[in-house]
């Protein structure tokens, strides 16, 4: 145990801290942030998603089979995982083998080999990947069998040729990490190639707008979506991505605006670079947002007709299965996919230490110094990253998520993961019971509905 010299005598550190009382209002992390702010005069910008604790899928449990429900035999009795997206209007809906997609992450935020790995991994696993705020790269298109092309407020790199060679189009209204916020890519990540794709000078901070330049609400978004459909001959599914905020109404308005698919991103969803205050204090968690979205779809008789993809804190097959049971058609992963590629690996502890961080804590993705070569535009760093190996790692992870999801579905007697239902779930906490509208375990009580 390290010792500290204090007033001339040795003090045992553990003994010292057992006597000292840390303020709940001003713990060391808050003191460090106040002093960082005082030193620099700049708010904290970082990547990753919300770090605060919120009610999550971990607060739900499956009931499993029992006297009244019989389970399916693992590995023998089929449990289907296929998903079709875009059945409402698109002439060419998307067929996924698994109910897990890879979320939009830009070339710019991520290196070209990392984007390639996402495409390779998703393709091996039979699912889609998504572009981001920086346009479509050849690496990404070439290695992604199913590629979703995002239409963002900045419109960096937006062009009709890429629209026509995309498999689906995602109109990004908001993002869970920052509903109402725009993008930011600091100058150190604006390499010549990134700059050229975005029609900006090299090395300047790139500020993406928070609102679209040519529509402002659901009425003109409807016209905008019709334009996209006209340009692409009504072939492509059109997604609308919303950050979890006023989710019930936002979902209803997305249906009105003509979405084939709604992508709902909860506050735990990741970001490449956003103000910490925005990440931690705006938007609602994935759990209640999902329930509100499903309710809106059901009331409009659009559940399963307009497909729902949920993201924001999906890590395990349990998260996937619970999201599907609550009514999602698929989930999407971003941060978890980066971690599967190697982000925050303990193998790189020394390098994280040199950046003033530690494996498990590293979130300065905006600075472009990522030792894994994932969130960087530095050629030396990104050159370390092997896109083939990364693709295999992501595919492995997606397979594990799928197997775990099937395990839970079979345990509840379901022959398709979409047959999971809220009745299979109970909540461990009153908060989760209220938000997910499933009963507290061992009771038939849902807060706000009937008496305990």
């Amino acid at each position: 145990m390290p010792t500290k010299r204090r007033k001339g005598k040795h003090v045992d550190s553990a003994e010292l801290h057992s006597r000292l009382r840390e303020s709940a209002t001003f713990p060391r992390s808050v003191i460090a942030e106040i002093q960082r702010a005082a030193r620099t005069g700049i708010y904290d910008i970082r990547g990753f998603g919300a770090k605060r604790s919120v009610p999550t899928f971990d607060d739900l449990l499956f009931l499993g089979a029992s006297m009244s429900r019989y389970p399916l035999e693992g590995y023998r009795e089929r449990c289907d995982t296929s998903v079709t997206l875009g059945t409402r209007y698109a002439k060419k809906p998307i067929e996924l083998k698994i109910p897990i997609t890879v979320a939009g992450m830009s070339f710019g935020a991520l290196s070209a080999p990392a984007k390639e790995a996402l495409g390779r991994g998703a393709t091996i696993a039979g699912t889609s990947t998504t572009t981001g705020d920086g346009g479509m790269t050849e690496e990404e298109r070439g290695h992604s069998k199913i590629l979703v092309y995002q239409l963002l407020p900045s419109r960096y790199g937006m062009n009709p040729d890429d629209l026509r060679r995309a498999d689906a189009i995602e109109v990004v209204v908001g993002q869970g990490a920052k509903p109402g916020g725009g993008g930011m890519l600091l100058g150190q990540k604006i390499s010549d190639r990134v700059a050229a794709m975005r029609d900006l000078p090299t090395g300047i901070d790139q500020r993406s707008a928070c609102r679209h330049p040519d529509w402002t609400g659901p009425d003109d978004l409807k016209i905008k979506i019709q334009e996209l459909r006209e340009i692409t001959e009504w072939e492509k599914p059109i997604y609308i991505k919303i950050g979890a905020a006023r989710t019930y109404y936002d979902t209803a308005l997305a249906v009105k605006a003509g979405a084939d698919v709604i992508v709902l991103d909860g506050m735990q969803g990741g970001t490449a670079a956003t103000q910490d205050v925005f990440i931690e204090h705006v938007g609602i968690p994935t759990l209640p947002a999902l329930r509100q979205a499903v309710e809106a779809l059901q009331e409009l008789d659009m559940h399963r007709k307009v497909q729902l993809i949920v993201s924001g804190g999906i890590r395990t097959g349990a998260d996937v299965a619970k999201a599907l049971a609550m009514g999602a058609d698929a989930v999407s992963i971003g941060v978890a996919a980066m971690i599967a590629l190697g982000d925050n690996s303990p193998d790189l502890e020394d390098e994280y230490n040199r950046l003033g961080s530690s494996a498990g804590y590293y979130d300065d993705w905006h600075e472009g110094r990522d030792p894994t070569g994932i969130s960087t535009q530095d050629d030396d760093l990104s050159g370390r990253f092997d896109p083939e190996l990364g693709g295999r790692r992501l595919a492995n992870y997606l397979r594990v998520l799928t197997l775990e999801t099937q395990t839970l579905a079979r345990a509840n007697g379901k022959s398709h993961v979409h047959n999971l239902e809220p009745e299979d779930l109970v909540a461990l906490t009153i908060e989760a019971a209220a938000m997910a509208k499933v009963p507290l375990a061992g009771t038939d009580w849902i807060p706000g509905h009937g008496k305990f």
Partner: protein
Amino acid sequence: MVHQFDLDHGTTRELNHALHEFSGSDEAAAWQIRNANGLHNLAVGIDAPLVVDIEGHVGYYCAGMNKYARVTVHGNAGPGVAENMMSGIVRVTGSASQYAGATAHGGLLIIEGNASSRCGISMKGVDIVVHGSVGHMSAFMAQTGRLVVCGDAGDALGDSLYEARLYVRGNVAGLGADCVEKVMKDKHKYEVEGLLREAGVTGVDAAEFRRFGSARKLYNFNVDNADAY
């Protein structure tokens, strides 16, 4: 031969599909489209050097994402005319509503009347020539390309501007954050002369224009500029 299409007897979908049949071809086929009647999304996503004349006023996003075609609207245009245009020429003989030429990457947009607010928002290489005036927040976050306004400009011209060059002949109600007036050198006069000529503006002297551009003070974050962010 001029292809004829009457929107009183055919749909927007049928029209656009017919225009897309030429995608990738070099054929400069002529199209005359009647009875636009304010319909949205007319002649969007063309990918051929067609010559398209639209009779009547058009709604949202006319000629959106145009490539190579020369589209003329004989009337007024609704919001987002020629949005995200890549190349070609779009001409509006009347006035245009909000965000004309938004995010357009190339080509030439000519508005013979006035343009409303946010003309050239986030433009990425297009040239826009407005015979009349433009509304507030025009060229907001404009990245590259040139905006020439023969009349006046509204409030907050060129807010958060990047490298686009703005030329205004009349009054400017106000400049947005980081937009400043710059010296009009000979090369800029030649540039304006060329654009006026391409846009069919006559009787206007390039020497009467003032030039505006980015002060480039917001290019990298500096806490002393915090009130401008």
